[in-house]
């Protein structure tokens, strides 16, 4: 229930299943238990879902407290809605392996790209490093 009309509030999302995307790229799914003015979130029975290609894997994480500033987006999951996706769930080990491979591949390509650019005298900083001071 919105106590301050004309504003968006997370109060109505309490105790519902949510999916949150964090700034570091992680996807968490869990029951939103508590919030505060900074949009810090408390998740219950959280699961971290790793997507690699068409596969995904769920890693149960328990209780998560997410600092508000790290939230990219947050959305409620409708449990009633039928889940007919093309995604295929795999085991944790498998998905982690897949992820590792993906990261590796990415790094390889990145390395090659950087090398090529370096050869041409250009230096483009990696976007994902900008955040980290």
């Amino acid at each position, binding site marked *: *229930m919105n*106590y301050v009309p004309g504003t968006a509030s997370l109060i109505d999302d*309490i*105790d519902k299943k949510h999916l949150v995307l964090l700034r570091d790229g992680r996807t968490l799914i869990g029951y939103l238990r*508590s*919030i505060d003015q900074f949009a810090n979130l408390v998740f*219950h029975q*959280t699961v971290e879902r790793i997507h690699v290609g068409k596969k995904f894997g*769920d890693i*149960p994480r328990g209780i998560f407290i997410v600092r508000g500033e790290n939230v990219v987006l947050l959305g409620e999951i409708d449990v009633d809605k039928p889940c007919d996706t093309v995604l295929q769930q795999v085991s944790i080990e498998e998905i982690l392996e897949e992820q590792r491979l993906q990261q590796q591949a990415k790094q390889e390509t990145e390395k090659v790209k950087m090398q090529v650019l370096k050869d041409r005298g250009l230096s483009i900083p990696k976007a994902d490093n900008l955040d980290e001071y």
Partner: protein
Amino acid sequence: MANCDYEIVFEIVCQSFKPKRVNISLKYTLDCSTDDSLSQNNQPLTLSGSSPLPDDDWQEEHKRLAELDERDGLGPSSPSIVISDVEDRGGEGELAESLARLILEADPAIAGVGATERPCPSLSLPPGHHPSSMLSYQQQQHLMRSRGSAPISQMNSHSIWENSMGFGPVSVTPGLVTHMEDSPLMSIIKEVGLPKLPPQGRNDEGRDLSERVPPPRSSSPVIGSPPVRAVPIGTPPKQPMSHALNHQTHHPTAVHVRAPVQHRYPPPFPERLSPNTLLNIANSPLCRGPFPPGVGPVLSQIQRAQLLNSQVAGFARGGPAPPLLPGGGGFRPYFSGPPPPHGHRMGPLPPHGPPNHTPPIRHNTTHLHPQHRRMLTQRMQSRGGDRGRTGGDRRSRDPYSNLMTQKEKDTDPYLDDYYYQNYYEKMEKRQERERDSSKKEHTTKLITPQVAKVEHTYRPVQFAGSLGKLTVSSVNNPRKMIDAVVTTRTDDEEKREKQVWNKRRQILYTVEKMYSLLLEVQDFEKRFVQAPEEDREALLEQHKTNTVQLCNSLREKEWDDRVSDEQCVMIMSVRKGKRLISRLLPFLPSPQATAIVMAIARNLPALAKKDKQDQVLCWLMEPVSAVIQSLSSSALTDLLQELQGNEGQLATVLHNKFGVTLLYLILSEGERMQSSDPNCQLMDDNRWTELVFSVTRELLSVPSSSLSPPLFTPSNLLSLFSRYVDRQRLELLQNKLQISALTR
């Protein structure tokens, strides 16, 4: 499946309260067809073993069965009737048996219960148990439901709505149309299900007694004071009182439940099955009339059995096996089911469905603007309506729900800034510490509860049954004891009033002072006589002083010897002052006395006006007359002149009793002077004559009504007038003034 008639005998095994086991057989038929031809084949199993009845006879059937049920309660022999009837059937009996066996086998709970007794479908009732009383609704319901949902899943296993249980939401199986034929069920239901009414006799008594009790007070026991409430009056209750509401909204009225059938527990639902549909299924066996509108396919017994199987298997796989508890208790088959195909499972057995979200309850919105409140209610309702139906029931089972208290939810970020508040809290603490370091004792802080700013409407104590409102005075309701009227006066008015009062007070003060002097003077003689020789001197001295003082007080100014007119008038404006003067006059020396009398005459109108209330001018008569008699002729003339004064004064004088008397006195004195002393100087100048003339003129012209009768009429007035007026006028005067010639 269409047009098949089936009848199934459901046997419900109940666990009695006593260790003995009781099996009751109930039956009703699932009849999907209204086809008469077919229905003839349908041999309903009746307890009494009679031939199949046409539908009209269900009433009679009911009656019979009711009797039967009554009989059943009597003795152990009754069950045998039931059972024998069951056995009477040929193929149908076997059918019943096999089904019963299936059910019993399939359901682990039931199996566990009825294990020992199973071999024969002829189940015996333990002695002394009333079959109907053994029936536990929970079990009945459960089985109904389980049986109800099973067939559907069989039918719609491919539907997209399929859920984890393998059920689809039931488009309600027109298929599973049931025909509740009768009476045994109904009667039993009726007996068990109907709420017991207290015996009438007791009820009446109870009511009578209660009426004798004096009417309760409608308010707090503390007279006058409102009840102490931590929460202001008018706050909605904290507890979600909408449990009942919950169930009502979330279990919508698709449930055509007849009165006896009661949900004693929150009905359990499998995860994916809409409560709507499940209830339909569950209750349809009970609720449909003999001729259901739509006829659909009815499952074969095998299908049903399979359904039951799967349904029950769900039990086994899923959560804890539901214990079949007798009476009350939470019979909650927990449909956990296999993990959903798309992996929504979260870790260790998550709670099913979204956690509890009771329709938002406004705990305290009293501090909000009324329009705001209304908006919230509307939103609440709309949201509750939309969402309640789908997920509401699931939320009731989430043990981790409501971790965030309402108070926390109510935090307004615009007002409650954590850092701001904490900063100031710390600051205050620091200041307090600094302050308190000097003092020994710590000043206790007043911690006021954060009560919403609501208008505490105080309703005074009312006594129930009283006529009218009896108010009792109390701290919160003080009664007006004194009707103090505040008259506000402006500053000017106040000043004037004050001045007046001050003056009056001054006059009174003067009068008092003079009085005391006067009294001393009056007492002098007496004292003088009594006093011894040596003191007489002193007394005399004092007397003189007093006299002098008295005279002085009559003067307006210190250096002026003359008697102040104003002062005299002032003194005489007061009643006591008049008295004073009357007593003082004899003691005054002649000139001053004369002066006073002159003053009186001069200011007679004013004095008369002031005297209106008191009417004590006449006190002055005697001393004044004494003074007049001592007057010289010129003085007398002057006096008369003074009395006449300005234009119109004489009229006023004549109007006043004292004035008239005074006039007469003067005239009579004049007359006496003239008559006694031929050489009196009264006639020396014409003043006297003229004055007398004017007086007579006035006397004649003045109407009799305005002529006030004098205190006394001097005798020589007639002779006076006879000197100055002609005969005619004299007579007139005579009449007017009622001067009798004889009074001499």
